[in-house]
């Protein structure tokens, strides 16, 4: 009974994380399209939401990496999975509150590693896999997106330099609908799978799923797809503004190149099972598209703040995950600890909502070169 209740709490927490992931990462997917006015904010978010849902059904390799690749599945308990999710959600909400586009993916992996280290020590974590499948791809992926976007925009500017700007702009505006859609699909593919991975971990810990014959049940895929697409639809205006206008001001060709680079890197990496961060990748693409035109076009200070948030994500989410595990463990080994933490978390969530409401926010920024209209 306790085990079933605990499993339900973990699944609800996982889907809540997935929702915050979609909410938090909407900016990555739609910022470029909105900032160049290729799409209205509402249309961009609706398309992203639908394609996030569809993307979740494309591949399961990242889910397998998260569920079986980075920690010793045999030692995972439902409480560890729950603590990991609490760590990730806490970090996601904190960075959302301060409008920092940190990585939801790395928050989740940081939470898993932190909770596992607190619960069973270093023996439960596959250190090599964390470095090889998470840390190194995390470092390389923004650089590749930077390079792809930089090369693409340089060649594109060479191709269209003698053409009428109005026609070219219209062409790339249409292109941004395609590249933005691909980015949304890629986001759904890579990010929804991480939640599927954690739910699968909890199912293995519960004994409902065999680690020997690992597979992700269809209902898990459908639930994760629904949660991320609803989160995406709910949107995240503050982070959209940071990514869409504060890194660089983009033209349509740059937006197209940045989104295309992001989609290519995320889809290729998902195919090989790397749980990448869409935030890292699209930020790399945006900076690459800006730097190729003019180095000073990139607001390196804002980019620097984002890099700091990235560097903090794994250890901070890990710390939150570890603290959540210690708290849950202190309250006993059953469902009581997670239940109490879930109630405290809901209270904190309500407090965050109140803090956010007290701040002066712009639901649709009116910057002429920016987002919203």
């Amino acid at each position, binding site marked *: 009974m306790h085990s079933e209740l605990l499993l339900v709490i973990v699944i609800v927490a996982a889907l809540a994380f997935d929702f915050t992931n979609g909410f938090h990462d909407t900016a990555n997917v739609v910022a470029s399209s909105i900032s160049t006015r290729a799409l209205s904010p509402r249309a961009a978010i609706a398309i992203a939401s639908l394609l996030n849902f569809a993307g979740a059904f*494309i591949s399961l390799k990242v889910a397998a990496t998260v569920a079986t690749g980075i920690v010793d599945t045999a030692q995972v308990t439902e409480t560890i999975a729950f603590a990991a999710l609490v760590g990730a959600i806490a970090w996601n909400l904190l960075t959302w509150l301060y409008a920092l586009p940190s990585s939801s993916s790395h928050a989740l992996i940081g939470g898993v590693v932190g909770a596992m280290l607190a619960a069973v020590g270093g023996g439960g974590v596959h250190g090599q896999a964390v470095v090889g499948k998470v840390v190194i791809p995390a470092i390389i992926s923004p650089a590749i997106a930077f390079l792809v976007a930089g090369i693409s925009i340089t060649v594109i500017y060479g191709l269209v330099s003698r053409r009428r700007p109005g026609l070219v702009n219209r062409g790339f505006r249409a292109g941004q609908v395609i590249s933005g859609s691909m980015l949304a699909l890629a986001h759904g*593919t890579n990010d929804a799978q991480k939640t599927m991975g954690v739910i699968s971990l909890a199912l293995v810990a519960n004994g409902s799923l065999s680690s020997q014959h690992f597979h992700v049940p269809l209902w898990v895929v459908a639930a994760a797809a629904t949660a991320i697409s609803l989160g995406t639809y709910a949107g995240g205006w503050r982070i959209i503004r940071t990514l869409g206008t504060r890194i660089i001001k983009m033209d349509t060709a740059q937006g197209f*190149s940045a989104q295309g680079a992001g989609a290519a890197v995320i889809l290729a990496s998902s195919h090989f099972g*790397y749980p990448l961060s869409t935030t890292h990748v699209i930020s790399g693409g945006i900076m690459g598209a800006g730097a190729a035109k003019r180095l000073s076009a990139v607001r390196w200070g804002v980019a620097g703040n984002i890099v700091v948030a990235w560097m903090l994500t794994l250890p901070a989410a890990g710390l939150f995950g570890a603290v959540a595990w210690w708290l849950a463990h202190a309250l006993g080994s059953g469902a009581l600890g997670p239940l109490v933490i879930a109630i405290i978390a809901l209270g904190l969530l309500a407090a965050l909502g109140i803090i956010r409401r007290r701040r002066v926010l712009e639901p649709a920024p009116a910057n002429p070169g920016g987002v919203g209209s």
Partner: protein
Amino acid sequence: MTTAAAHLGPATIVNVTTLAQAVIYSLVAGVGLAVAYGVAVTGTAGLLDAVRSHRTAVAIAWGACVVVCAAVVVGGIAAGIIVMANG
């Protein structure tokens, strides 16, 4: 991390072949499709200019170029999704 793992070099920790494949796929797909689309855009502009100035042969050449590039973009995207879905 175990003591043995601590002595492993980066190449052992990382599956270099897989990572290199991911990088190459990203570069080829990202740059290739973006450039193909760029050619399609410039081709469309060239086609419209040629039609406007009644240069039929040039218009046909640009039209063919646009069709080929559009096919490359659509085919590339479809192939990518199929490869992903088939694992």
